[in-house]
């Protein structure tokens, strides 16, 4: 079995699945359709947690050997974000170019990625714990489930051994330690590593690394937004006062007006 390949074998096939998302400063404006957001004027970035996934993939390669592919389902323009990943040490990139990526639901995305990962012989997959556009936190687990692989989510500590690994994740109750066999999908949380900056050397090297566009068969979406709305404006608040003198009036308001104390 590929996954039980010993330490240090230079062929370990590592994949980081990433997504291009609007920058976190982006404002939400409802599109004319009323069922989606208007993307005009958006600047894009690699989803915050995906940067951690790419870093972990590159670190794993540096430690254990192998090759890192960055894989995305998204618009053809994602090549800008992919080039950054290549500059940070990934070896090659693949785009599943999808003009309707904005509507693609989690199951359809997971099916497309799982088929691609299988065909490319992936053994260890890193994803961000969530993409900061649709915040669904689902695709990593679903890819693993469809492939029959192990998956640990929201990982903030990782050790890999021969054919298996140990991961830590923080929950409401504390820090869980989990054991898992390879092949596996790991979804990465903040704290797992500090993503590196691309140096000039990396940026130059990235220019020669391949970005391949791959065709795929798209299953139908099951979920669809039927309405998109901005949050209701909060009712007008008030300044209860300045400094320590305002504490009394605040307690009064919390107790009698808001009734939360």
């Amino acid at each position, binding site marked *: 079995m590929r996954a039980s390949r010993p330490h240090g074998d230079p062929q370990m096939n590592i994949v980081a699945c990433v997504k291009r998302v609007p920058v976190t400063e982006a404002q939400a404006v409802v599109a004319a359709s009323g069922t989606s957001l208007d993307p005009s004027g958006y600047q894009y970035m690699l989803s915050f947690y995906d940067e951690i996934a790419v870093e972990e993939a590159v670190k794993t390669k540096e430690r254990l050997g192998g090759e890192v592919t960055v894989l995305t389902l998204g618009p053809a323009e994602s090549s800008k974000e992919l080039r950054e990943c290549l500059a940070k040490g990934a070896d090659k990139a693949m785009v599943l170019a999808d003009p309707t990526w904005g509507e693609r639901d989690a199951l359809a995305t997971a099916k497309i990625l799982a088929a691609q990962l299988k065909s490319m012989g992936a053994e260890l997959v890193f994803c961000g714990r969530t993409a900061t556009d649709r915040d669904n936190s689902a695709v990593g*687990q679903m890819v693993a489930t*469809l492939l029959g692989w192990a998956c640990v989510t929201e990982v903030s500590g990782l050790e890999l051994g021969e054919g298996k690994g140990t991961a830590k994740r923080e929950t409401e109750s504390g820090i869980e330690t989990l054991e*898992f066999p390879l092949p596996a999908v790991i979804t990465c949380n903040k704290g797992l590593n500090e993503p590196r900056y691309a140096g000039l050397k990396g940026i130059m090297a990235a220019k020669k690394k391949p970005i391949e566009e791959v065709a795929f068969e798209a299953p139908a979406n099951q979920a669809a937004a039927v309405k998109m709305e901005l949050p209701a404006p909060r009712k007008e608040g008030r300044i209860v006062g300045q*400094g320590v003198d305002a504490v009394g009036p605040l307690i009064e308001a919390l107790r009698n007006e808001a009734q939360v104390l």
Partner: protein
Amino acid sequence: MATIVVFVEHANGSARRASLEVLGAAAATGNAVCAVVSDPDAGAVAASLGAFGANKVVHLTGPTAYSPDGTAADVASVVQSAGATVCLASATSAGKDLMPRVAALLDSTPLTDCTGFEMAGDKATAVRPVLAGKAFATVESSSPVFCATLRPNAFKAAEGGGTAEVVEQAAGSDRKVTVVSVAAKEGGKLDVKEAPIVVSGGRGLKEPENFALIEALAAAFGDAAVGASRAVVDAGWRPHAEQVGQTGKVVAPTLYIAVGISGAIQHLAGMRTSKVIVAINKDEAAPIFKVADYGIVGDAMEVVPALTEAVKAARNGQ
């Protein structure tokens, strides 16, 4: 009538409040509710769920160590044998981890962290945030099973329900990932996502040591969690688990107190659905005051200790 399967989490011998809220949301639709509880030691939890809206409880017994993939397979099999068309859990760490796996096994697509859930006849609809709550989408799905996790603190637990039949079922033996240990949080600290009150601090506290003031205020409330802005988490003052905002946790407590937090758009997205918001900031023009119900303009170092004493007095019924 449709059947809704609800995965119920438990800790320290009782069901999590967040799970009871999901049972409440399911029961409120008027459909049949089948709760699933995992862990051989959870017999008392299973027996308690009728009072919170469950009509039936499946108690999974078997290996003690929790396995996310193993439990997902168990939940999916309960959904299938119950003929359920809806499967819900809370959007906690475990729920968000589990539901996409369950959905994948049922050839369905999951909807995460929903703030709205309703059913008209057999048709379920959910409302969920996008861009961390800068917008909300109403979502329908043609999935064979409508799979969703519901945001903690966004739904009401049902009370005064009846009793439910408890059925024991052996958990499946195919488990890839297993939890081998859990290092419990010190002093049973509440998580920001679940706590009914959150007291958050930011740069305005000037030094990491000054978070002691935030901790003291949270302790005065008793049922409050400590939160933090991204700036202080990135500066290494506070752990990431406490970060509220677009690249941290999105919270909806009854009371959110922002201390020394200016209110970047990413932070506001993460807390603006809180029921009551209090802001304490030196800068009168800080954007946090635009979403706050009550504001105090002043130095956190002076205001917070005074507020802590006042909360203690209020909690002691004075």
